[in-house]
């Protein structure tokens, strides 16, 4: 029989037990963690003080309640239940972070751990939930994350800029070895193998290596330096004009100093600059040559005059008259030269009208075709006839003849093809091509391309200068292209040329397109405009001739639509209107409403038949009519009526 435990010992052991449980109770209650014991029915069986304090409750309020009682059914189902279920089913320790609403402290971050336990020693009966407040460290972490994202985004932007910027950026060591280079540098240098360039020395792109050393010294000394424009040699061995600047990279991580070079492609800049210099040079030569030509014309007139006087004195067909005629012929040739120089220097008056370029060009082709050698082919792609420019048709014809003759002469030895093409482009697109202001919404680009001898750069830069010629003395005056240049400039256009020795040349002519309706009639400077509304073209011709030299110019429309349009857009507001009431264009009853579209009162002369209709009478009494003429009227009558009206 088992001896019964002595009462003393029993008491002692009970004391020890209760002491231990008090300690563990105290540890449990004073833990920094919120601890609770939860059974399979999601009911709290035990919670510690920290838990109660955090929730601002006392233990007896919680024990016996379910988690969904405390957290609300929604939070329980969404965030808690599945974790608890996993812990019970799999017997795993579950740890996760979550933010909860806490009484009095707002939303805070917690780390929650579910630990499965067994009271029976067999299956899992309970779990211990430990919840730690990690709000402060979590907020710090989030802030860091946010900053990291910001930095990453900025890096992306920088990377994109670095990738897309058309400026080459190269980092190299003071000895020139390239450490890093961006995409644009490879592009500018025509290099398509990025791996090799990284082993390359920046020096090797310089025409003179010592220049690179000088650049390096200057950067090391002054930290930043602009070297201006310099010709480098690209990966294909071709010269390329670049704008270079450099600075010392102070941010290098190791003690070695790096140099950063910024390299811009300056080819375009150089091209435009050269073109501008070219244009200015031609302008100067033009002014000079124009002045000389002007004086020469005076002298030539004197020579002609006296020669003609001599011819009056000597018998016709005499020896002397023959000689004088030779003088006159020489003067004619000299006159043609001065005239061409004046055209080049834009001092010849051109009578500009709206001209269909296609019409003039096909006329020129037709004219020139008969004299073209059989080994030369002319291909032309012309567009519709409605593309009009403002030009003197004769001068435009001269431009085309000159360009085509030159092209044919460039090919006369071996034959070839002259290709003509034309297209209309938006004015904005040619802004960069032209040295002058854009004057029209659209530009016509004509191209004359030959497969002839081509020209060297030295020749190319001088072809528009007067008297510059590559032909033998006596063959051509060297004025053709100068004249062409002058005529095109006078039209607010431009002529450009590209050529390669042995491959041929291409001339581009840019002309501002004039839409007929925008500029129906070009009116000379100081002349006063008379709008003549009549159905009869001959009547307007007669009147137009009668008005010659009187300071008036006649605007005449044969088309009703065009007349109405001109009224609506007010492009050419007339100073006087002459209206024939029997004109088919505007009926008498329509005239007054049309007249009222004008922004200011314009004097009117009305011409009617003998017997006025009631509508005509009304018009005559409306107060706008200055003069009333009755058919038939003489030109003299009209002229005096005009004088009286204005």
């Amino acid at each position, binding site marked *: 029989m088992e001896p019964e435990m002595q009462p003393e010992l029993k008491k002692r052991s009970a004391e020890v037990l209760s002491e231990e449980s008090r300690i563990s109770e105290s540890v449990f209650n004073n833990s920094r963690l919120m601890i609770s014991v939860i059974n399979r029915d999601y009911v709290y069986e035990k919670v510690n003080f920290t838990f109660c304090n955090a929730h601002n409750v006392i233990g007896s309020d919680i024990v016996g309640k379910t988690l969904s009682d405390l957290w609300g059914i929604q939070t329980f189902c969404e965030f808690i239940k599945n974790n608890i279920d996993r812990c019970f089913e799999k017997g795993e320790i579950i740890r996760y972070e979550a933010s909860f609403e806490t009484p009095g402290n707002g939303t805070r971050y917690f780390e929650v751990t579910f630990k499965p336990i067994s009271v029976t020693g067999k299956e899992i009966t309970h779990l211990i939930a430990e919840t730690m407040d990690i709000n402060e460290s979590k907020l710090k972490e989030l802030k860091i994350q946010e900053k990291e994202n910001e930095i990453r985004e900025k890096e992306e932007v920088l990377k994109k800029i670095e990738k897309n910027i058309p400026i080459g950026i190269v980092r190299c060591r003071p000895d020139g070895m390239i450490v890093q280079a961006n995409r644009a540098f490879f592009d500018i240098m025509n290099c398509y193998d990025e791996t090799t360039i990284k082993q390359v020395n920046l020096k090797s792109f310089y025409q003179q290596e010592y220049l690179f050393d000088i650049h390096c010294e200057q950067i090391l000394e002054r930290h930043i330096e602009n070297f201006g424009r310099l010709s480098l040699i690209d990966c294909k061995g071709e010269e390329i004009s670049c704008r270079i600047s450099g600075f010392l990279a102070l941010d290098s991580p190791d003690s070695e100093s790096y140099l950063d070079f910024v390299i811009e492609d300056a080819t375009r800049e150089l091209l435009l600059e050269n073109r501008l210099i070219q244009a200015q040079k031609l302008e100067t030569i033009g002014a000079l040559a124009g002045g000389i030509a002007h004086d020469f*014309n*005076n002298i030539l*007139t004197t020579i002609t005059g006296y020669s003609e006087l001599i011819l009056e004195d000597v018998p016709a067909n005499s020896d002397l008259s023959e000689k004088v005629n030779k003088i006159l012929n020489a003067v004619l040739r000299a*006159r043609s030269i001065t005239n061409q120089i004046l055209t080049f220097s*834009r001092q010849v008056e051109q009578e500009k009208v709206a001209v269909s370029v296609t019409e003039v060009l096909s006329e020129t082709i037709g004219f020139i075709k008969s004299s073209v050698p059989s080994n030369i082919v002319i291909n032309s792609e012309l567009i519709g006839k409605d593309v009009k420019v403002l030009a003197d048709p004769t001068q435009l014809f001269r431009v085309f003849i000159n360009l085509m003759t030159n092209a044919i002469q460039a090919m006369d030895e071996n034959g070839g093809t002259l290709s003509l093409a034309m297209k209309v482009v938006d004015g904005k697109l040619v802004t960069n091509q032209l040295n002058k202001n854009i004057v029209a919404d659209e530009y016509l680009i004509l191209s004359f391309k030959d497969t002839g001898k081509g020209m060297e750069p030295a020749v190319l830069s001088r072809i528009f200068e007067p008297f510059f010629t590559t032909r033998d003395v006596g063959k051509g005056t060297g004025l053709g292209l100068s004249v062409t240049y002058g005529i095109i400039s006078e039209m607010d256009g431009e002529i450009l040329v590209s050529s390669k020795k042995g491959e041929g040349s291409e001339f581009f002519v840019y002309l501002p397109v004039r839409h007929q309706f925008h500029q129906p009639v070009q009116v000379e400077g100081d002349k006063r405009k008379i709008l003549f509304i009549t159905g009869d073209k001959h009547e307007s011709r007669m009147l137009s001739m009668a008005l010659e030299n009187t300071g008036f110019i006649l605007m005449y429309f044969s088309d009703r639509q065009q007349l109405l349009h001109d009224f609506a857009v007010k492009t050419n507001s007339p100073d006087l209107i002459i209206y024939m009431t029997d004109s088919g264009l505007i009926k008498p009853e329509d005239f007054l409403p049309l007249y009222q579209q004008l922004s200011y009162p314009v004097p009117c002369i009305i011409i009617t038949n003998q017997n006025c209709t009631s509508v005509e009478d009304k018009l005559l009494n409306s107060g706008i009519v200055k003069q009333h003429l009755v058919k038939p009227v003489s030109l003299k009558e009209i002229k005096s009526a005009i004088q009286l009206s204005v």
Partner: protein
Amino acid sequence: MPRVLIIEDEAELREMIKTTLIRRKYTVMEASNGKEALLHFKPSMTDLVVTDLIMPEEDGLKVIIKLKELKPSLKIIAVSGGGKAGPGGYLNLAKALGAHAVISKPFSINDLIVKIEELLDKEQ
């Protein structure tokens, strides 16, 4: 006999025109620039003026305006050897200002005579 005033700064050219006109029995007066012409201009004694446009001392365009003021019925022929002012050019401007005919240099003296005769014929 019709009376013609020649305004031209080029002495040789002026002399040549003068010689030709005298030969055709015109009464000729001459001036070497616009200022001189205006100073000595006698409206009642002048039927027609031949004037250069680009001259020192009062250019031809101003001369045309002033002569027209002094004698509105005066016939004027403007002569120019190129040079441009504004979009219309000198000759067009001269026309607009009231020149009855314009001739560009170099010209044939016979053409000038024809123009002068035409203008003076119209008068009669």
